[in-house]
């Protein structure tokens, strides 16, 4: 077994072992559980780092498989690991973000009664995501895809004793499952057509000169895209993501940066060869993601819950990644995925510091609790917002620029204009968040709050601050890796220099600057109204604040239909099936009642019946004794 394969197996085995050990034996030992989980992720991070060094060389692919399910007249389904620059880089991102979240959670979740369970679930999440990333077989991808869904269900509903997280977890699970139906169908069709589902084989079969008919490729790509839409919270299936904010904040950081939602984008990047052979689906994806991006950005403009703002920004940024992929550039889309993983984890973790401090998700509440006293949070929030807005030395600028450049070459003007508009809105809502959170104005009882927390959370705050500061530093570093990504992921494609100033970057930068300036006018400057231009239009504000009425639409259509269906099923169950059982029982009881009349208890009646029967018997015997 070669070194990279062994490293890939170790990277997957470590979190799995940690998860099993924690959930079975360490439920009562929170400290040990956290230590074990962090140790396992450190091992994974080391293995992933080795993988990146060994495999992330242009045009390197390592495929190691073991036959898992033999198929008649075919090579069979082989599970294994597929290592190439894409999967190894993603594995490193997953391991790094999960480790940061685990360290951070030492402070954030301290004292929670489910502390050990929490770390067990985090390890499960890491294992599922690594399995998905390194899978060599599309069916294997699907298995881990569902495990990722399970882990996020468990973590979103971590505080399941409260109704809102439990409902949010169900919503996340069911809505992503809608898309997964398509994914499953697509995988089954591929296995039927190709005999196996090994990813390089599928891509070769779909590509030019492959065995798949163009129509078939389009169909399969559309089905796979359904799964992507559900998982990456795009198009009509995104409303679960804002609700998923009911989970613990570090979970949101994990969910939004490197795992769960990134899984969908990663799948498109992984299967890009197949998607590229389906131009109609790619055109649809381009439009869908552009519309999702701008829709989510408008929703973020009116949210008052800091985590909801970040959730909408995730949807919007995921749409950017998909735009890059749909425009044909794996490097651009994946580059944005990596930088976004960094700065979105940073934003959530710094938001978590404020939430931990103020015990509220509402930005106006946080502003009233001396947000300035949380140094690491302020640094993290500022760096993350600058990256999100796409301001020049920060990571978001470079990757967004790569996406926009890829679109500029391959997409139409209308799409490009919408994408630029979204960039401006992004800057506006991210700095609306910054100003609303940090420039509170009226501080009430500051001394009391600061004192109470300084004494209680001394060590916890260090654990929370360290990952935030590391990630904040990373936002300045990751952006310069664009060239590295371009060389490794899209070898041969023309590359866009990191600082290739032209009309495009200037437009994006000036739009970002305009957005920030508008946010400053409305929220930042002293004496600002602190209500945005959208919030002054009640109809528009309500429209944006309720997910463009999508939840209401689902409530009126899908949910109502499902409820009617379950009512019919209930009627069938209670009236028809239970009725048959109850009727049988009632008939038995009634028959017994009728027959019990015979047992009158009157001796003389028994005697007369006896005599009558004897007489009849005698008459019958005397008549010859034959049956009639």
């Amino acid at each position, binding site marked *: 077994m070669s070194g990279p394969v062994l490293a890939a197996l170790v990277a997957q085995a470590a979190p799995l072992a940690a998860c099993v050990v924690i959930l079975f034996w360490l439920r009562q030992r929170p400290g040990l559980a956290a230590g074990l989980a962090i140790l396992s992720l450190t091992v994974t991070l080391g293995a992933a780092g080795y993988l990146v060094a060994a495999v992330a060389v242009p045009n390197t692919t390592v495929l190691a498989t073991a036959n898992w399910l033999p198929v008649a007249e075919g090579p069979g389904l082989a599970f294994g690991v597929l290592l190439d620059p894409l999967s190894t880089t993603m594995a490193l991102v997953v391991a790094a973000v999960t480790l940061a979240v685990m360290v951070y959670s030492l402070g954030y979740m301290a004292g929670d009664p489910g502390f050990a369970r929490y770390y067990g679930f985090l390890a499960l999440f890491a294992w599922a995501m690594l399995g998905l990333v390194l899978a060599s077989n599309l069916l294997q991808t699907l298995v881990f895809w569902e495990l990722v869904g399970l882990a996020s269900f468990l973590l979103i509903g971590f505080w399941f004793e409260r109704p809102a997280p439990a409902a949010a977890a169900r919503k996340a699970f069911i809505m992503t499952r809608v898309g997964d139906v398509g994914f499953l169908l697509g995988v089954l069709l591929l296995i039927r057509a190709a005999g196996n589902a090994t990813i390089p084989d599928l891509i070769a079969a779909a590509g030019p000169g492959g065995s798949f008919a163009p129509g078939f490729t389009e169909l399969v790509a559309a089905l796979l895209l359904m799964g992507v839409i559900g998982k990456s919270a795009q198009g009509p299936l995104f409303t679960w993501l804002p609700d998923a904010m009911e989970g613990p904040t570090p979970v949101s950081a994990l969910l939004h940066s490197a795992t769960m939602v990134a899984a969908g984008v990663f799948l498109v990047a992984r299967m890009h060869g197949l998607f590229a052979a389906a131009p109609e689906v790619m055109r649809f994806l381009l439009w869908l993601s552009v519309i999702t991006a701008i829709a989510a950005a408008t929703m973020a403009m009116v949210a008052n819950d800091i985590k909801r703002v970040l959730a909408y920004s995730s949807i919007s940024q995921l749409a950017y990644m998909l735009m890059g992929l749909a425009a044909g550039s794996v490097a651009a889309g994946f580059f944005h995925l990596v930088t976004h993983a960094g700065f979105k984890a940073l934003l959530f973790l710094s938001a978590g510091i404020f939430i931990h401090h103020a015990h509220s998700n509402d930005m106006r509440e946080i502003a009233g609790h001396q947000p300035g006293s949380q140094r690491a949070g302020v640094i993290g929030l500022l760096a993350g917002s600058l990256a999100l807005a796409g301001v020049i030395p920060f990571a978001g600028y470079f990757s967004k620029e790569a996406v926009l450049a890829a679109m500029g070459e391959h997409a139409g003007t209308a799409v490009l204009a919408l994408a630029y508009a979204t960039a401006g809105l992004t800057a506006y809502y991210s700095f609306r968040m910054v100003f609303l959170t940090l420039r509170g104005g009226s501080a009430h009882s500051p001394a009391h709050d600061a004192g109470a927390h300084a004494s209680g959370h001394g060590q916890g705050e260090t654990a929370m601050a360290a990952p935030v500061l590391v990630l904040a530093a990373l936002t300045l570093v990751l952006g310069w890796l664009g060239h590295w990504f371009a060389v490794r992921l899209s070898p041969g494609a023309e590359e866009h220099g990191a600082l290739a100033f032209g009309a495009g970057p200037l437009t994006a930068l000036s739009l970002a600057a305009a957005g920030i300036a508008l946010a400053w006018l409305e929220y930042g400057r002293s004496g600002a109204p602190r209500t945005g231009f959208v919030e002054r239009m009640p109809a528009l504000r309500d429209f944006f604040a309720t997910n463009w009425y999508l939840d209401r639409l689902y409530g009126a259509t899908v949910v109502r239909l499902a409820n009617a269906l379950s009512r019919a099923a209930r009627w069938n169950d209670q009236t028809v099936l239970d009725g048959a059982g109850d009727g049988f029982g009632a008939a038995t009881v009634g028959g017994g009642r009728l027959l019990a009349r015979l047992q009158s*208890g*009157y001796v003389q009646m028994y005697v007369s019946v006896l005599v009558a029967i004897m007489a009849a018997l005698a008459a019958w015997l005397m008549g010859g004794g034959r049956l009639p």
Partner: protein
Amino acid sequence: MVNLPAVLGVATALFGIGLYGLLQRRSLVAMLIALELMLAAISINVIALTTLTGQDPSLGQVVVLIFVGVAAAEVAIALSLFVAIHRAAHDIDVEHLSELKG
């Protein structure tokens, strides 16, 4: 000479009277008396069918003597049961003694 049909007719009449009494009377004692009548009818049948058909007469007589002994024992047991029932229920009317019904 006593002819067989006449004796059997008497026995049948006696059995019918006994059956009527068994079904008609409500007192346990009266029912026991009627039952004794039916037993007597059967005894007559046995004697008549053994002696008047030219078989060994002593066999029938022995059997009937055993019947009488059994009947005496039965009466003793039945009457003591009736006393016990009367003590428990203060009644020996079978219409009122109908607790064992379904």
